[in-house]
């Protein structure tokens, strides 16, 4: 019965094909790659660890051989898998060799193989469960483990997000002063019970001391201002310095937003350590520092990364997920939903975000699990109550002012602005990041961060709208001016003759702007220009940096400006035809806060190209269903406008910049090329490197492997006939031969390597053969040489293939890998095909 288990595990021996990454640094094709693997892989930190076995060689015999009867009939059948397994006799060598069936760093997984591995495992548990009570319990716990994992992911991410919120809030206020009755209180909580704050100055209380008050004894005057300015800059520089040094020392992978990489990982790429525990710790700690340093960045994107790290670490608790890359990616998809759920307090928005933006493979089961996990996470965050206002986000707003159909005009204008800004931002940011990647700039990450943080602090302190954190700015801008507000944005002239008091709280009539409001408006305009500029250079620096908050801030400022403009226009021109119907004097017809909200959605939509999920996130933020139509109009317009300048959003642009092997599901393949045009070897190249199923010696096989850099080799019946038998992976082959040399007696360089079922007759004194049929993928995908490429691309996309063999009249002709396809697509789009770096 060893067979079954082995076939379950090895049937779909991995991918390979095309060359390894051209970059010399990753070319671990030589044999020491193997030893390095055995060193590295059993660590928790790994994105991937050994499927099927730990690398502890002494341990392998304890692995469940599943040799109880009755499985023979479950030949692990996929439809396309014609080849029934041979019922070969047992051979000690056919014990599973640890390490076989795993992937190397910076490689792509084979979805087909992983999924069928899981199906086999599941089938086996199901059929076994009829036998005993214990097995039944095992089956139940196995079915339950997915939900349990989701629960844990939700709890952990929610708790971490709460911690990040509280700490970031506190550390941000630290730049301005300190609380005397407990240094751990932020400004608001310092004045929580104090009755000192007045209506006009809401954040004044004796316990909260600004740095000037502490150092020079007074909070007033020019000198105090300078002291505060200096302290502000000092803290900003200190925080950003700590953030970037921690990232550089402990976890370089913790920098950036993480969403482009998560997207690539979810599509099947492997980046070891990217979701490890050090990345988690360092990202959590430095995210707080980066946000509080006042840099123009947000914590929302990195929270997705944090949630995915949690999920990956918790996956180690469950064998089902630990050992299967495809199953683990289902969990990671759900974790991405959790990240957005806690970042915006929008559970449904999170699920849709995962579905629309990051996930590659998103079955219904994952949808429900994401839903559950997002719910748990939001609940956890709510019970932590990080802001003390029973809301999950700082800038939660609640207003129910109605809007008029004619306002769709300005909303669409905001959409156009958002689209233009999005397209411009992507161009500028990618150009800047390319500069960082290729020029000297990239060699000084610490200096870069310090300079940007210094400039940000220097410029932002004088302007109160840039001095406050991004989230607070958005809160202020979203806020609707009611009687209860005293902020500068609400300095309207009091209507003297109005009989105020009839309407309570909200629903204030339009009023003329006061000088305070005009000051606020030009401050906001300056803030807009500054934010637009600084965000371009900030996103992509080597600190954790999200993009949602800065984009939303830009949009919210633009929206608020337009909103106030519209309001004043309507106030002074009641008699215009367009205002006559709905904006009579004394009516409250235009809500600037709503414009800010629509503007924020439009800009975020322009940058990320999200649509459905964005609208849902926005209305979960505001709790008002009546604004769906304005939000939809603005988001759609912004997507159209931005798409006119370039089809890819910021995340796809970064994926392309880094050359990750990401087969974009949204992109159409429209060229008329054929499989034979794309496959390797090309016409001028030497013939395809193949193994024969018998007749090769160990030495010859090793020489073939050593002389090439391919990650997999087709196995044919003989060199003359070139008829295909199967496909074997370089990594598996190397590990197995090495294992045989060490553990099987009598294997020498002249031993035969056999991929056949039955050993051919050999001379009696010949050394024992090395039998490797179990490594063989007996059902490699093949296409005929005249298959159009659009069909081939579809096969790759939908099945998640790594490689596909090309045949002509049944003879093996060549191989197409995912990398070949990406290179071909790049070539067709007039881009540099060598930009695709990874397999």
């Amino acid at each position, binding site marked *: 019965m060893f067979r079954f288990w082995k076939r379950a595990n090895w049937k779909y021996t991995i991918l390979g094909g095309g060359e390894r990454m051209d*970059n010399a*640094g990753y070319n671990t094709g030589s044999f020491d790659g193997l030893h390095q693997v055995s*060193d*590295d892989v059993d*660590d928790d*930190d790994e994105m991937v660890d050994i499927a099927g076995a730990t690398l502890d060689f002494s341990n392998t015999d304890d692995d469940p051989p599943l040799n109880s009867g009755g499985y023979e009939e479950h030949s692990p059948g996929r439809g396309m898998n014609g080849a029934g397994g041979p019922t070969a006799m047992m051979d000690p060598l056919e014990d599973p060799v640890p390490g076989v069936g795993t992937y190397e760093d910076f490689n792509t997984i084979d979805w087909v193989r992983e999924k069928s591995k899981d199906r086999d495992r599941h089938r086996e548990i199901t059929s076994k469960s009829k036998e005993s009570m214990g097995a039944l319990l095992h089956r139940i716990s196995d079915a339950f483990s997915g939900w349990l994992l989701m629960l844990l992911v939700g709890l952990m991410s929610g708790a971490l997000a*709460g*911690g990040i919120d*509280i*700490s970031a809030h*506190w550390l941000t206020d630290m730049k301005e002063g300190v609380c005397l009755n*407990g240094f*751990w*209180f932020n400004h608001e*909580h310092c004045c*929580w*019970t*104090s*009755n000192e*704050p*007045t*209506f*006009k100055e809401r954040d004044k209380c004796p316990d909260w001391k600004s740095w000037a008050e502490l150092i020079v004894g007074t909070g007033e005057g020019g000198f105090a201002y300078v002291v505060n300015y200096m302290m502000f800059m000092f803290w900003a520089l200190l925080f950003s310095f*700590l953030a970037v040094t*921690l990232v*550089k*020392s*402990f976890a*370089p*992978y913790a*920098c*950036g937003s993480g969403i482009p*990489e998560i997207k690539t990982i979810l599509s099947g790429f492997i*980046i*070891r350590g990217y979701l490890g525990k*050090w990345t988690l*710790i*360092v990202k959590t*700690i430095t995210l*707080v*520092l980066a946000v509080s340093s006042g840099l123009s960045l947000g914590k929302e994107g990195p929270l997705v990364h944090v949630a995915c790290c949690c999920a990956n670490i918790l996956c180690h608790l469950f064998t089902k997920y630990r050992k299967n890359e495809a199953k683990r990616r289902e969990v990671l998809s759900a974790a991405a939903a959790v990240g957005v759920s806690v970042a915006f307090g929008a559970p449904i928005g999170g699920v849709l975000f995962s579905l629309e933006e990051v996930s590659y493979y998103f079955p219904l089961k994952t949808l429900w699990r994401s839903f559950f996990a997002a719910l748990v996470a939001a609940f956890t965050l709510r019970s*932590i*109550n990080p802001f*003390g*206002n*029973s809301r999950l986000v700082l800038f939660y707003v609640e207003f129910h002012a109605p809007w008029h159909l004619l306002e769709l005009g300005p909303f669409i204008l905001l959409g156009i602005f958002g689209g233009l800004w999005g397209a411009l931002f992507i161009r500028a940011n990618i150009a800047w990041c390319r500069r*960082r*990647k*290729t020029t000297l700039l*990239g060699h000084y990450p610490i200096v870069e961060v310090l300079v940007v943080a210094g400039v940000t602090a220097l410029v932002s302190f004088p302007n109160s709208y840039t001095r406050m954190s991004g989230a607070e700015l958005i809160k202020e801008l979203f806020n609707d001016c009611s*009687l*209860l507000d*005293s902020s500068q944005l609400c300095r309207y002239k009091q209507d003297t003759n109005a009989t105020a*008091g009839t309407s309570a709280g909200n629903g204030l009539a339009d009023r003329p702007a006061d000088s305070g409001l005009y000051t606020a408006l030009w401050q906001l305009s300056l803030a807009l220009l500054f934010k637009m500029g600084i965000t371009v250079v900030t996103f*992509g620096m*080597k600190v954790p940096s999200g993009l949602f908050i800065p984009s939303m801030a830009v949009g919210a400022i633009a929206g608020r400006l337009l909103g106030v403009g519209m309001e004043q226009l309507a106030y002074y021109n009641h008699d215009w035809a367009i205002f006559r119907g709905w904006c009579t004097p004394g009516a409250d017809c235009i809500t600037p806060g709503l414009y800010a909200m629509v503007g924020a959605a439009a800009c975020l939509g322009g940058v990320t190209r999200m649509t459905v999920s964005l609208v849902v996130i926005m209305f979960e933020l505001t709790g008002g269903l009546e604004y769906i139509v304005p939000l939809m109009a603005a988001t759609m317009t912004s997507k159209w406008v931005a798409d006119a300048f370039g089809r890819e959003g910021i995340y796809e642009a970064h994926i392309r*910049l*880094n050359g*990750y092997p990401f087969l974009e599901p949204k992109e159409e393949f429209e060229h008329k090329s054929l499989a034979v045009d794309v496959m390797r070897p090309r016409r001028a190249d030497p013939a395809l490197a193949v193994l024969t199923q018998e007749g090769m010696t160990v030495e010859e096989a090793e020489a073939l492997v050593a002389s090439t850099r391919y990650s997999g080799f087709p196995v044919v019946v003989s060199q003359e006939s070139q008829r295909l038998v199967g496909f074997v992976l370089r990594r598996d082959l190397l590990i197995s031969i090495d294992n045989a040399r060490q553990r099987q007696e009598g294997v020498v360089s002249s031993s035969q390597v056999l991929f056949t079922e039955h050993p051919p007759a050999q001379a009696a004194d010949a050394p024992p053969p090395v039998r490797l049929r179990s490594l063989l993928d007996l059902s490699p995908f093949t296409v005929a040489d005249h298959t159009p490429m659009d069909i081939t691309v579809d096969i790759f996309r939908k099945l998640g293939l790594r490689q596909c063999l090309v045949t002509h009249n049944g003879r093996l002709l060549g191989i197409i890998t995912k990398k070949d396809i990406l290179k071909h697509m790049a070539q067709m789009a007039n881009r540099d095909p060598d930009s695709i*770096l990874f397999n």
Partner: protein
Amino acid sequence: MWLPNSKIYCIIVKTITLDGPSENKLTLHIVFILQNSEDIRCKCICPPYRDIEGQIYKQNVSLKDCNCLHVVEPMPVDGKDVEAYCLRCECKYEERSSGTIKVITIIRYGDATIIMYLSILGLLLLYMVYLTLLEPMLKRRLFGHSQLIQNDDDVGDQQPFANAHNVLSRSHSRPNVLNKVEHAQQRWRRQVQEQRKSVFDRHVVLS
């Protein structure tokens, strides 16, 4: 479990005992303090009314008493205007997190999150300083100068972790628990070094 307006701390001590397969019994004490009385407030914002300035009132009252009549003290207007004045005020009941879950074994009154955050940050910084400054110094003392000079060609020599390879090769000889720990640590350091190379030097990922 929610205790409105509790004037005393409510302390619940849970003792969870986990029976492991070995004799090691792990005992966890989890202590919660629920709802410090300072952690609830009713905040009323009253806008300007006639010639009275706008004002903010805060009182430590329970949810059912959270309205203008209970919280606004002293009432700035007289009897007949109270209703008109109160109509315009907005009262919100708020609770905050600082007291909801505190691990008092760490600190009595502090906000556990901030304390925890600061301790982790401090530990990381200390560890970083140790790896950058102290360890090379200790190494120099223990192993002499020669071995350090050997890997001058290493790219990130001034970085912490730079001498990982060196120590790795050495530690094979003495297999004991301490060495295993050191080995694991060195392996991690080598991984970080690899990551750093690909992110900061070669710029192949995450740029």
